[in-house]
């Protein structure tokens, strides 16, 4: 029989993957990987503010992650080199967050839980948050699928079809902030991007259509979550990183498979 905490951990990983599959596909298609990193790093600053102002952690991270995502997309729309700007913003937010957390009164804060996640300590309330956020994001992406896809493919083609590519970009920005906020407890600020990118990149090796890639990325996320948790239990390794290692192994396997098939 599964232990309760293990069941909750599995449900958290599975739930999160419902959002990271499709959102991660867009992150890969739009080359937003570093963008995801910056948003996730900013979440640490959100944690600090939430602790200092006695707000729920998810609210603090959601607000700060969204503000960060907006700042970054505004910056890149101004034609500034996203690379350097992102780096400055990203690491400033991360470090400012770490510094600010040290000022938080009362309870000693377990930093590594925020940096690497603590999936085995997921509570029922966390689960509700993860599932609600993930389903909202997946639903949002499904609803606007064609518009998002065309805006990603070519903003000009989208504009000619009366789709506002900037607004669709904002949809993804908001989704990213939601995913960061709800997944902080599960995989942590440093590994959220990995959860977005690796399953989607693995799915790319076998998928020939956009929708297939998004769905496959969800399935890979599920497999990686379950395999990672199993491995973590088996070998007594940290759970969050084990999930990422599992998805990396899936990526490797599918890459080898598709390379062999195509030669």
């Amino acid at each position, binding site marked *: 029989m599964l232990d309760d905490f293990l069941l909750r951990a599995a449900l958290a990983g599975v739930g999160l993957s419902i959002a990271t599959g499709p959102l991660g596909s867009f992150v*890969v*298609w739009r*080359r937003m990987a570093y963008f995801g990193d910056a948003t996730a790093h900013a979440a640490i600053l959100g944690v600090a503010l939430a602790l200092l102002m006695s707000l729920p952690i998810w609210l603090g991270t959601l607000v700060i992650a969204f503000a960060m995502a907006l700042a970054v997309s505004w910056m890149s729309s101004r034609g500034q080199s996203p690379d350097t700007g992102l780096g400055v913003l990203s690491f400033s937010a991360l470090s400012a967050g770490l510094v600010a957390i040290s000022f938080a009164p009362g309870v000693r804060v377990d930093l590594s839980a925020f940096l690497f996640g603590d999936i085995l300590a997921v509570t029922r309330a966390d689960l509700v948050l993860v599932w609600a956020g993930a389903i909202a994001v997946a639903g949002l992406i499904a609803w606007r699928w*064609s*518009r998002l*896809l*065309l805006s*990603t*493919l*070519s*903003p*000009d*083609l*989208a*504009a*000619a*079809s*009366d*789709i506002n590519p900037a607004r669709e970009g904002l949809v993804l920005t908001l989704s990213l902030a939601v995913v960061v906020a709800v997944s902080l407890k599960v995989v942590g600020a440093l590994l959220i991007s990995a959860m977005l990118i690796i399953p989607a*990149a693995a799915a*790319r090796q076998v*998928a*020939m*259509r*956009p*929708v*297939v*890639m998004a769905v496959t990325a969800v399935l890979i996320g599920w497999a990686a979550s379950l395999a990672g948790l199993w491995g973590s239990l088996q070998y007594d390794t940290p759970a969050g990183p084990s999930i990422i290692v599992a998805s990396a192994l899936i990526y490797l396997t599918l890459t080898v498979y598709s390379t062999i098939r195509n030669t």
Partner: protein
Amino acid sequence: MSLIVARDLSVSHGRRPVLSHVNFSIEAGEIVTIVGPNGSGKSTLLRALLGMLRSSGKVMKKPGLVVGYVPQKLALDRSLPMPVSSFLNLPKPHSPAAQAEVLRRVGVPDVAGQQVADLSGGQLQRVLLARALLAKPDILVLDEPTQGLDQQGEAAFYQLIETVRAETGVAVLMVSHDLHVVMSASDRVICLNGHVCCEGTPHVVRDAPEYRALFGQGTQGALALYQHAHDHAHHDCDHDHSTGKDAANAG
């Protein structure tokens, strides 16, 4: 009413003005070609008219106007798997039969299952046109649509556009610098160089001093040659439909 009207349209990239005080309109069923040297703001004008970039001045589109846009090029990221059949369904789905019909029409009947990223330049232009036609547009906007096509393919491409216009009454707005190929296929030519230098029927524009100043006398010969060739092609088209079909399938 006009399909698109622009009044006093100006666009700058940073501080550099690219277009200044352009007035423009296009009517239903009209073929308008924009010509001009490199950097004269041809693509910019199209993009400003379609609301793809910020401009000052006024652009009015007829309410509910459906635009079929064929961009100069489409840079598709390899990370996005996109077969032609999925691409044609953006943003609105179409039946496989409708897709097959339009692909046959533009002369690439066998590409539905191929990845867009694997298409040749010429095939991609045709697929982009197919996608634009599927929307049943009121106006086709083509930005140097024949890049990547050989001469034969180019002639077939323009012939197809004329045929579509004759059948559906779609208006066509295109940018080109293949002066000799395009000019006499147009009802109206706009000669652009940051502003509208001159405008009118191909003959009027060809004889305008502003046009001569931009393109020199050299194009005269080519233009005359083309006019002859074009009239000839048109003659064929009117009386023998197989010519048009062959041409559309060529390349």
